[in-house]
């Protein structure tokens, strides 16, 4: 980092040695992460590694026990809700909506930070464009609660796009999506970054992360285990340790493909993997609780 804060305010997002404690348990320890304009940073790691908590700290939903988070060069704590909403948009894992708002109305909610400003003149155009990019134009009149999980996720993504902010945070946006929509959502996310936004996206699919992220930040047990370009970070050694499961990294046309190793005859006497199934179930619960 050559520039200093006094000369040019660092745009994008910056978390400096952030630690977060929830109910006495240390969820994040000394995490530093910078996301600059034009960059897509993927946040990966096993269940319960602290990805959602880090995201909550980046959005200002969770106050760090120590360390600071800066949004566009200013501490997140100093923002009013509306000011912050003009700088960063967030897609959470949970997108249930009370009452049967239709899809278009939900996407329009993304425009609300701009209500009363000159930018709200573009509302209709922006909303339509966001809905086209998220492939929900044809659902426009449908009531949100009646949609499938994937359609709800895309509608919520359209809402985030409609907010048109220089910082975008997405928590597992592809979890409920089919292959086509996974790819198009992340391609759209890339376009958003190309247009100058700083983007953080939590992903579970490491190959997807490798294909679309400029940098990958690997979290493990609340700490940054690695942070760098996909080709440097996604190594068999690191991932095997972090995920406690043997993986292979295959080069497919210059893009790393991460494949878990599977024992030929999977059964109860699976000795290669130390108690992997039970471990995963418990971890999943933690991750879900954390998301709420």
């Amino acid at each position, binding site marked *: 980092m050559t520039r200093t804060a006094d000369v040019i305010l660092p745009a994008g997002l910056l978390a400096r040695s952030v630690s977060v404690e929830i109910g006495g348990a240390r969820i994040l320890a000394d995490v530093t992460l910078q996301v600059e304009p034009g960059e897509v940073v993927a946040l990966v790691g096993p269940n319960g590694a602290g990805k959602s908590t880090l995201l909550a700290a980046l*959005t200002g*939903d969770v106050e760090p026990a120590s360390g600071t988070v800066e949004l566009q060069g200013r501490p997140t704590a100093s923002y*009013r*809700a*509306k000011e*912050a*909403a*003009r700088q*960063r*948009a*967030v897609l*959470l894992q*949970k*997108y*249930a*909506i*009370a*009452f*049967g*708002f*239709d899809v278009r*109305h*939900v996407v329009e*909610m*993304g425009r*609300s*930070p701009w*209500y009363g400003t000159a930018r709200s003149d573009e509302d209709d155009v922006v909303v339509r464009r966001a809905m086209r990019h998220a492939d929900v134009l044809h659902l426009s009149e449908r009531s949100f*609660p*009646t949609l499938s999980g994937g359609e709800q996720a895309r509608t919520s993504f359209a*809402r985030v796009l409609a*907010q048109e902010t220089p910082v975008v945070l997405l928590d597992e946006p592809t979890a409920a999506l089919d292959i086509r929509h996974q790819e198009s959502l992340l391609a759209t996310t890339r376009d958003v970054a190309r247009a100058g936004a700083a983007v953080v996206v939590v992903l579970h699919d490491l190959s997807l992360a490798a294909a679309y992220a400029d940098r990958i930040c690997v979290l493990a047990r609340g700490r940054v285990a690695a942070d760098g370009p996909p080709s440097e970070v996604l190594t068999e050694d690191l991932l095997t340790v972090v995920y406690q499961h043997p993986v292979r990294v295959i080069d497919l046309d210059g893009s790393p493909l991460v494949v878990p190793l599977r024992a030929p005859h999977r059964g109860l006497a699976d000795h290669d993997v130390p108690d992997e199934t039970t471990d995963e179930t418990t971890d999943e619960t933690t991750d879900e609780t954390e998301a*709420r």
Partner: protein
Amino acid sequence: MKVRTGRVGLISALLVLLGVAVVFSAAQGQLRIPPLEVLGSVLHRLGLDLGPLPTHPRGESTLWEVRFPRVAMAAVAGAALATAGAVMQGTFGNPLAEPAVVGVSSGAAVAAGTVIVFDIGLFGSWTIAVAAFVGGLITTLLVYLLSRDGGRTEVVTLVLTGIALNALTSAGLAFLMFLGDQQAREEIVFWTLGSLNGTRWAAVAVAAPLAAVGIAASVVLARQLDLLALGDRAARHVGVEVERLRIVSIVVVAVLTAAAVSFCGIIAFVGLVVPHVIRMLAGPGHRLLIPASALGGAVLLMLADLWARTAIDNADLPIGLLTSLVGGPFFLWLIRRSRRTAGGGA
């Protein structure tokens, strides 16, 4: 612009309905005055020399001293209660929240009852209204603190909180009846049953401004209440100061409930039925839901009061009894429905 026409259409339909309901319910009663004469009387008071005047010698005075204050109060209370329901449902993100169901109305009644029993007259004719407001505010805050968990209110928790608070307030009312003299007792009974019998203009003059302020504030909050449907975190991410909005909404609900409860007693379920029907007709957007609920509530309560005073000859049924009779089954149906469609509202 389908939404736009729907909006104008619904509001104008409700306004027409409101006008018809005013004339029609003012015409009915022990002394029947033809609707045309009612209309004529109103037009003459407005300085327009149109239509026939009431032909009955006591027609004019019956209309302006008995009927119209009562009709006006029904409209004011109905509008206030339906708006309070809509705002409360938006604030809690739960279509079952309603001032009477969760105990806010009876909380307001306890406070008003206290003022009567101990004969407190601190604020003149506004005393009862002020007490009802404070009582309503305290109960709404209690509901809010007791029924929320992790930024969300579950149906079951909300309803159970309502049961508990209603039990508490019933005990409070029973105690007040025990303490009070004969006259105070009768007044408290009147409260728990709800009635518009004997409404005077003076009462309307207190309730109407309260309701007007509450409804105006609700209209201002409408846009933000929409965003609250996203959940607390997501609402904050699109720029809502969630906690501040909740506090303001709670005060608004207390003002509206006080406007209705101070002079009419506990009239349940108006705040549940009206916003629900409007949502079915026009969708959940609060910018339309709130004004439409206010108008719909006014119409509904005027008609309910008409029914209350004409159903049995020479008898005035308590209006709260009637709304509960219709609203109770509706509430049950709503609970069943919202439990089935998880996420569809509950």
